[in-house]
């Protein structure tokens, strides 16, 4: 920002040149009244430098003009009231916008907030749900508390058991997490009871876990009887047959110990001086060979979960987007902790439960919404997106609801630390936080194309930033009097930017199998064996590098 502002002065100083200024002051996105509103808003702030440089400003002086000169009502505020009443009034307006087809899908109405942690966010969400609308805010509500996510973990809990609960920490997030576990477990039981097949399935998983655990002790006894060291090298010639001959061993474990390809690998490693540890060989023979990600896909056999993997008739993409995200979290866990298979040793000492629930999932539970925008974030059809203003940068929506007009200017600690080290003139620290809040609201106000709605809270303990106050006066248009007729209708397709489709990754993949395309390409599901995709990318990238190398070589003299 500062570089832009200082550019002309620096050109004069260092280059002795007056830079040519070409104003980009036409807004092609928003209706004229929206542009006028955010211009008036920005003018509420005193941007002038401290004396004596009072004629200069900490912003580029430019007058944005709207290309669209339509005079339809485009900026409206709620009746000033307490948060519940404001939320209800706005929810009513959203219903009208949908009924009168001012938007083609709920995902064209974005709710923007300075932070998704404020209480007014949850209240707004509830108000929308009360009138039968669905919200998409995976970063606002706790991800694990979403119904489809809780259901999956309910079954995981029934299979692996609950993690330890320590009363000493019974407060705050820890307690909330364990409360969630109880809710999930109850959900799991309800789903299990409704489907006898699922009961059998879960019992089968219990039996598998019990079987690998039962294999471990006899093998450990064989190791002890031969005075071998679990951490020592595995020598197939000496150890394979005594291990496989262990009394009471399951067929599966015996087969794994006697596997020919593994035997070959173990000998190669031994010859190379990098032998496997005996303990690893035993863990390998006593492991369940499915991961949490496999379990997720296997549960699709049962009606309750199968239904979640289909698009519902009302086109609500929310659950599929959430489940796609779940597979991404599960894949990260599986790969990071090597949990493609889980050994008996980890299962029996509850190490798996501790790693998965108490470390990984608890961290996920506590993870707040991220302030960083993520281009990958989906805007599922059928749902109203809730975003932070930061996340909305660079996006546009036919209707924008700015859900909170209060944001306190706080000096960022990093700014305060870094500032004295900067050897150049910059915005005064005590003023820059206020400027940043203005710039943030400018982003929010300028996302709207056809209609901008402002939530105007008033009541005990409720404030709005004072730059909004003179604008939202008694003459300001309010929701109850708003006529929707003149407002432009947004369509689903013509309005949007042309979509790019890849011949191979879209067209050919879709024709390979449309359902596979839906899950793995459109909704970002991660395959349990992601090897096919990685394989292709790895070969392609390396061949590309080879070609670059050869091209560079040829161009050398």
């Amino acid at each position, binding site marked *: 920002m500062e570089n832009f502002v200082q550019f002309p002065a620096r050109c004069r100083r260092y280059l002795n040149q007056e830079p040519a200024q070409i104003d980009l002051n036409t807004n092609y996105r928003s209706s004229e009244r929206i542009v006028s509103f955010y211009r008036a808003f920005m003018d509420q702030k005193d941007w002038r430098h401290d004396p004596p440089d009072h004629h200069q400003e900490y912003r580029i002086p430019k007058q944005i003009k709207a290309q669209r000169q339509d005079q339809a009502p485009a900026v409206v505020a709620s009746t000033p009231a307490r948060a519940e009443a404001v939320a209800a009034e706005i929810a009513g307006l959203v219903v009208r916008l949908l009924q009168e087809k001012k938007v083609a899908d709920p995902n064209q109405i974005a709710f923007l907030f300075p932070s998704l942690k404020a209480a007014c966010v949850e209240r707004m969400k509830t108000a929308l749900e009360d009138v039968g609308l669905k919200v998409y805010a995976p970063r606002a509500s706790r991800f694990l508390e979403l119904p489809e996510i809780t259901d999956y973990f309910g079954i995981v809990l029934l299979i692996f058991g609950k993690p330890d609960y320590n009363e000493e920490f019974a407060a705050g997030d820890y307690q909330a997490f364990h409360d969630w576990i109880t809710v999930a477990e109850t959900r799991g039981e309800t789903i299990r009871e409704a489907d006898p097949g699922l009961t059998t399935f879960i019992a089968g998983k219990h039996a598998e876990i019990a079987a690998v655990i039962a294999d471990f002790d006899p093998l450990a006894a064989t190791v002890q009887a031969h005075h071998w060291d679990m951490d020592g090298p595995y020598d197939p010639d000496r150890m394979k047959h005594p291990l496989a001959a262990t009394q009471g061993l399951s067929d599966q474990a015996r087969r794994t110990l006697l596997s020919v390809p593994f035997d070959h690998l173990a000998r190669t490693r031994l010859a190379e001086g990098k032998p496997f540890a005996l303990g690893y060989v035993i863990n390998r023979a006593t492991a369940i060979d499915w991961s949490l990600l496999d379990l997720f896909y296997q549960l699709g056999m049962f009606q309750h979960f199968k239904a979640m993997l289909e698009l519902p008739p009302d086109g609500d993409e929310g659950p599929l987007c959430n489940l796609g995200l779940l597979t991404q979290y599960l894949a990260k866990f599986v790969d990071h902790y090597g949990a493609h298979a889980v050994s008996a040793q980890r299962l029996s000492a509850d190490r798996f439960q501790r790693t998965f629930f108490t470390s990984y999932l608890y961290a996920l539970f506590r993870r707040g919404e991220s302030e960083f925008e993520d281009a990958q974030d989906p805007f599922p059809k059928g749902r109203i997106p809730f975003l932070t203003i930061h996340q909305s940068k660079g996006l546009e929506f036919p209707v924008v609801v700015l859900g909170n007009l209060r944001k306190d200017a706080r000096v960022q600690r990093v700014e305060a630390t870094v500032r004295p080290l900067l050897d150049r003139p910059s915005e005064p620290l005590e003023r820059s936080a206020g400027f940043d809040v203005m710039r943030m609201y400018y982003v929010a106000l300028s996302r709207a194309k056809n209609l901008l709605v402002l939530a105007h809270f008033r009541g005990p303990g409720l404030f709005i930033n004072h730059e909004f106050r003179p604008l939202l006066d008694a003459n300001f248009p309010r929701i109850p009097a708003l006529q929707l007729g003149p407002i432009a209708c947004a369509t689903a397709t013509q309005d949007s930017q042309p979509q790019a*489709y890849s011949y191979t990754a879209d067209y*050919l993949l879709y024709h390979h199998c449309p359902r596979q395309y839906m899950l793995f390409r459109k909704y970002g599901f991660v395959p349990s064996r*992601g090897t096919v995709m990685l394989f292709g990318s790895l070969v*392609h990238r390396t061949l590309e590098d080879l070609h670059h190398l050869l091209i560079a070589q040829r161009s050398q003299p």
Partner: protein
Amino acid sequence: MTDAAIEARLRELFEENYELLRADGGHALSPEVKLAALTQVLLYWRKLKGIATKVSDTEVPLVLPDQQSPAGRRYTIEGVVDIVQEADRTVMYDIKTHDADYVQQYRDLYENQLNVYAYIWQTLRGQPLDETAIIATAYPPAVKQVLQDPERLTQALAAWEPVVPIPFDQQRVEATIAGFGATVDAIEEHCFHPRSLADLQAKTGSGRRFGQDVCGNCDARYSCSAYRDFARTSGHRQETQLRAFLAQQDEQDRASRLDAIQTHDQD
């Protein structure tokens, strides 16, 4: 650089890319699969040195802008190719990590693809083009069986035909693009039904059925109604049998999973 030096560099590049992609996507490859990928890269260099050393532009992005689907959606088509441009001759290659038999089997799809790419290259870029071809980098079983035997490997490599020439025919471009637009509409309108039971029963080039070859490796098979029908017609009529069939897993997959626990259970 000597051939040996290039091969050494290729191994380094491969490792670097592997680490980058792993960090990016999370998934790891089992040692055997990783070795197979490296072998594919090294054999490409050995077998197709003649093409590789002549590539003048690699990973060239092709874009066909300003298209409109039958339902009025605006879209663009994107693709990536490698170009060998010599004094009097230009050839466009598309590298696929499938084997040549697979490419032959779905030849129609690839013909259409290269037709569109050729159209973009010639018409929009105004560049000459003499030939298009697919390079199928997956080596055939005949090569795989003799990887450890240098002498027989030389013979097997000589017999391997990884380049599949695809004649391009501009007459068909329009029909292909129209079909592409219809697919865009199908995606946007959420037509995501699985392939038909008849498709699953049809045999692929490997002689196995699509349901075994493709669906058998797809995680969505558990929840897929077409695959369940396929399983039932393959003799798994009862629900319990059906579940057992769905949960089947091959030994190789089990082995590669067990390999993954190695580093983590030592701590």
